[in-house]
């Protein structure tokens, strides 16, 4: 061994550029990091509930594959209805775009951009695919919970019926609204105006509004 060690400098002298490809330590650290990434990737199979996505993002697999969490879609949305998904929606979905109809609803930017959704136009990775329109795209399906709905307490509320622009709601013989599933595109107008939660005495214990847009695959 002693001989070898002494010879090393001499052997190295003639080769000026004797650069190792990678040191063992760096390789180990790198492989450790790679293993961590591969472990993290397994969240793909942890299972995640489908969510109500912006226009063009209805193919959950395609959206999760292409989305780099750049946050551009929620910035450009003129109505502020696109929000980052929460940790509660799964690690995989975290920071991907979901619809938040608490204050406004989606008209595929008909008013603001002539029917071309700004979120789709600005998505740099095509996670939100082009071609979705109010007529062809379906973000989700409005679901009315009769236990929470004020109209079903015969209060006469019909905010959601009045808000619907796509003729997807009707009134029954008691003037209580219900959803026409075939016509609903999940725009969220009904959810955004629902007043059930503001009436604490009636909807005690409720955590969401009486009419809520649910993802289609749920």
């Amino acid at each position, binding site marked *: 061994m002693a001989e070898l060690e002494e010879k090393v*400098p001499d052997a*190295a*002298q003639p080769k*000026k550029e*004797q*650069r*190792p*490809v*990678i*040191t063992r*330590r*760096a*390789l180990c*650290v*790198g*492989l450790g*990091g*790679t*293993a961590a*990434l*591969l472990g*993290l*990737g*397994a*969240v*793909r199979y942890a299972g995640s509930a489908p969510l109500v996505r912006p226009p063009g993002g209805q193919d959950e*697999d*395609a959206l*999760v*594959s*292409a*989305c*780099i*969490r*750049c*946050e*551009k879609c*929620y*910035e*450009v*949305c*003129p109505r*502020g209805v696109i*929000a*980052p998904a*929460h*940790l*509660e929606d799964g*690690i995989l979905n*975290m*920071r991907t775009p979901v619809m*938040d109809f608490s*204050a406004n609803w989606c008209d595929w930017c008909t008013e603001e951009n002539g029917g071309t959704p*700004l979120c789709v*136009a*600005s998505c*740099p*990775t*095509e*996670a939100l695919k082009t071609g979705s329109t109010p007529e062809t795209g379906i973000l989700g399906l409005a679901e009315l919970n009769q236990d929470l709905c004020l109209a079903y307490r015969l209060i006469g509320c019909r905010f959601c019926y009045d808000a619907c622009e796509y003729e997807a709601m009707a009134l029954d013989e008691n003037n209580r609204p219900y959803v026409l599933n075939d016509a609903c595109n999940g725009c969220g107008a009904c959810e955004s105006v629902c007043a059930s939660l503001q009436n604490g005495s009636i909807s005690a214990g409720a955590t969401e509004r009486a009419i809520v847009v649910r993802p289609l695959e749920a």
Partner: protein
Amino acid sequence: MNTKRLRTIIPLAVIGVIAVGFATHVGVGTLSAIGWQDISLLCPLGALMTMIATKTMIPRAVVSVVIAIALILLLARAFCGWICPVPVVSKIRGVFSKKTSNTDMTGTGVLPANENPLVKATVTVKSTDGSAEGAVEAVHEAAPLTAEEERALKGCAGGCSSCAEKRARLDSRHVILGGSLVSAAVFGFPVFCLICPIGLTFATIVLVMRLFAFGDVAWGVILVPALLAAEVVFFRKWCSTFCPISAFMSLLGKANRTFVPTVDDAKCRESAQGASCEVCAAVCPQGINVRHPEAGMSFSECTKCRACVEACPTRAITMPFLPKKAMAPATVVVEDEDTVAAS
């Protein structure tokens, strides 16, 4: 204003512009896809991962990668030194420990400037300049390279173990860059984006803004900054050891020939006065030795931070747009009779 302060102010200004843009819905995006409305320059790593994950060519991603490659060829790792918010975020480490590296976390780091004897020596020279000429001369004369030092330098160039680690062609970052692309292919989504500290920086800002603007309370408001803090606090050398974006830039940076720090031999203390100096090597956050490139990291790691330019006691270092002809003999193909005959 010195560039060190500027290199803190610019990333903060970038964060500020992006935060204001988010609040006003103008559509500037984040650094993951910076641009205007539907024009975005994608993060090159994100673009590659998303194309691998979806197994499709995405036009905007391809264009972004091409533009990013052009910028890296022109500026090497300047993004790391001037724009990336992570080195600025990493300053929170100061809260936990009082030790400071000489500039930031982008590089391998050497001795803090104020503890470095080489830097101290020059500072002394500078401060005594004019007032005590005798002392200056003493410093100048006392420091020619001894035969032993020269031998030590040569020995190092031959490849001792400590230099070998620095000078290996690839390091752990490059393995992780490969791992990022492989994990995107295996699991079909950009895995690294989940933990990217640049993305987490902007996610933190967005989540905090949403918390105050809409009362959007979620675990993410705590978890995202906690993950970001863990990455910069516990992985102290994130940029030079883990960051796959830095790896991507350092790989392409090998072809960078512009704005490379160049020593003017007529001014350099070492070549002009025969004194030992090494200040440029001591201040470089990337561990590049501008005077003796073979002894430090490769120039492909250069973040164009100008620390060496500013620290040089004789102002011998410049960063010209193109290398002077004399400085780049390797790129000139000489075809005189001798070489033709020899070949």
